């Protein structure tokens, strides 16, 4: 893997451990858990796409749930209406969402910051209604179910698709897991490649100072529009994986809540770090799927309260997210150990996290004056 080049021995070991864990996991978990892991992957991929836009490029989208939903519906419509085979629909979803992203990216050139957040919030709210409005295509509130013909109770019937594993000893959920793990890794490798490339540096430059970026020869408009498209395309892949994993789409799966969760995953894990959104998605998934159901019943309905409080607290205390916080911590430790003399040799990603930290240093008074 390209991204492993120049990585120290300790890092390689940790990557290897992570890889082993990801491979072993489906064999040690119940099938329903494996399907939940796949859901976390879909959120991770979509959050990774959102991170390109919001973390690296500074365009805030509270509406990526709508793009995720567009990807999911693209898959469902292609499979149910046009009878496409399952996996090619992922590519179609990416293309459709890329185009939708470019279209949304055009007005986003003029609408920035909090105002863009406002518009995208409205998009997220509107999405399920659009689905209901065009129910002839989308199935309305009943949604669409991905079916195939199966033999049951003596006759051939349309039933929910199953992922038949071609490999002996690999259960259907495990097979599905590895397919989606593969797609997710590809997405993150692409994201990492974009971030490390010159394009990635222009994204950050535009975020930090648009005029300066323009002066230094970056085509700001084109870059921003294409970023919106790519980000949307990746979110669409996440949504496509969702539809294929669940075998169904339904408007209530794509409400504003989903968009908020994607944003939470990005910020919690660490905006403008490649792996941050994946970590945020997993933490969020663990919270919702593993911890919340175990809470005593009176606290179960308190999950939004806990989540909201954590979010505010994190923004105030560790605004660079878990990866940023973890990085600061290890850096402090290594500085102390090495007398602070030696520089971290892997600076490239570090720079971006540092910028976020610097940018978010707490300031109690916007006027800079304490009464």
């Amino acid at each position, binding site marked *: 893997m390209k*991204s492993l080049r120049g*990585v120290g021995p300790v890092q390689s070991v*940790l*990557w290897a*451990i*992570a890889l*082993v*864990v990801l491979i*072993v*996991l489906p*064999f*040690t*978990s*119940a099938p*329903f*858990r494996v*399907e*939940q892991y796949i859901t976390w992957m879909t959120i991770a991929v979509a959050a990774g796409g959102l991170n390109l836009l919001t973390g690296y490029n500074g365009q805030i989208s509270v509406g990526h749930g709508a793009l995720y939903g567009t990807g999911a519906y693209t898959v469902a419509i292609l499979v149910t209406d046009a009878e496409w085979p399952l996996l090619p629909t992922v590519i179609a979803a990416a293309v459709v969402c890329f185009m939708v992203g470019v279209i949304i990216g055009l007005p986003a050139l003029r609408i920035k910051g909090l105002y863009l957040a406002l518009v995208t919030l409205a998009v997220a*709210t509107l999405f399920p209604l659009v689905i*209901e409005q065009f129910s002839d295509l989308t199935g*309305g*509130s*009943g*949604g669409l*179910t991905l079916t195939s013909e199966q033999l*049951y*109770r003596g006759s051939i019937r349309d*039933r*929910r698709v199953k992922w038949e594993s071609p490999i002996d000893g690999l259960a259907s959920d495990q097979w599905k897991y590895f397919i989606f793990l593969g797609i997710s890794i590809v997405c993150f490798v692409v994201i*990492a490649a974009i971030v490390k490339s010159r394009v990635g540096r222009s994204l950050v430059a535009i975020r930090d100072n648009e005029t300066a970026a323009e002066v230094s020869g970056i085509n700001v408009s084109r870059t921003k529009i294409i970023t919106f498209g790519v980000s949307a395309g990746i979110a669409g892949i996440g949504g496509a994986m*969702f539809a294929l994993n*669940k075998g*169904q789409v*339904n*408007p*209530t*799966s794509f409400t504003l809540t989903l968009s908020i969760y994607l944003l939470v995953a990005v910020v919690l894990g*660490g905006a403008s*770090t490649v*792996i*941050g959104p*994946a*970590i945020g998605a*997993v*933490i969020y998934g*663990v919270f919702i*799927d593993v911890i919340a*159901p175990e809470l005593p*019943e009176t606290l*179960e*309905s308190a*999950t939004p309260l806990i989540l909201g409080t954590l979010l505010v607290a994190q923004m105030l205390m560790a605004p660079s997210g*878990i*990866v940023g916080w*973890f*990085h600061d911590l*290890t850096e402090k430790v290594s500085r102390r150990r090495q007398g602070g003399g030696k520089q971290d040799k*892997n600076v*490239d*990603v570090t720079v971006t996290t540092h910028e976020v930290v610097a940018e978010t240093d707490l300031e109690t008074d916007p006027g800079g004056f304490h009464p």
Partner: protein
Amino acid sequence: MSTNWKGLAALGCALVLIGSACGRDDGDDSSSDSDNGDSSSEEGAFINPSEDCDAYDGTAGVDGDTIKIGTIRPADGPYAIYDQVTSGLDAWVESTNANGGVTAGDGNTYQIELIKENDGYDPGRTPELAKKLVEQEGVFAIVGVIGTESNKAIRDYLNDECVPNIALATGSTEWGRADEYPWYIAGLPSYATEASMWVDYLEETNPDAQIALLYQDDDFGEAYRATLQKEIEGTDMEILAEQSYNPLSGGSTEAATVSLSQSGADTFIVGLGGTPCPATLTFMPDTWTPETFISVTCGGNTALSLAGGKDVGVLLAQAVYEPGDPADQDQPAVQEFMTNGAAGGLDEGQLTGGISSVGWSFGALFGAGLEESDTVDRAAIMNTLFSLEDASFGLIRDEMDITTDGGEDPWPLEGFRIVSRTADGSWEEVMPFNNKNGESNEIAG
């Protein structure tokens, strides 16, 4: 990529922790002996598990004298009100256990353990929770899952696994397809049957009714609409105007109601659930006084207390005793519910609200199946529930002829009476109970 490895490692560690916490059982649970369901394999029974199930385990979830059941409902989000239904189910379980348990047909007395999962009314989440209940918790049956779409989302899975899904908390006409999905039995009457009762009443009282229809823009409202259209065909009745309403839309039903009020209709059908139903009554202009029908889903005190007094005189097709109705207070079923429901943890508002009592009846339907079956076996219970003969359970009215016959007649509840709301919160009968046994599927078309 320099800092990212740390993150990835952290991700890996987290995953290992979760993985090990719920380690997969290598020996497949469901492959254990399948020869214990003698009664279930009877000749001629509706379900024959040895034919329909790959790896049938009829007694999964039965551990000594405890039977584990599961349910899925929204506990947060905009539909969290339906959690009140599950509170009723919970109260049935609690009070049944406190009173010693259910004495099943095999002569043993069982305690019930209820495990509740929260899908937030998102059918995208329901399947994994159903699988969790079956795979991890190992429940015997699933009872009272809320919502048409949520139940549809787990239908193939539960039928493949041969896990009973009893007393679905929805009246979608989908549940008439028992031949295809024999492990599903509805807990409410079909919405279509309800609508046909309205038409029956109108035929007697207002044969050339001019109808204004406001219906919820989903499977539930569509069932009302389709049935009305079908049932008034060939009569002098007419749907003069109709409007749909989507609860997600962010608007109220006010514009739709006001628009319908201008149609000149003399009959108003409010095919809505939840708060929009009583809210619609408050939006009706004083100048418009049609005969108004409301959906059975908002016939309880909790919903109608939101109507600000404008619920007086509305009509309803009613199938159950209303614990909040002074006229029903003397019914033994109601008295039992008031006593045991309170002991099971329901507060005053829940007892008389008309929502939790529905969930109570769901539990009672499961209990009835358990009591009437010769053995405690998944298929045996389903076969029992699909061959009921004038049974009775929970808060269902005595006039109801609860009779089922497999795929021929899969609906336990098919009768209603028409009642009118009085100023003191009672329901007054305006058309006597009518059983439409075995007709629900035909009505639904």
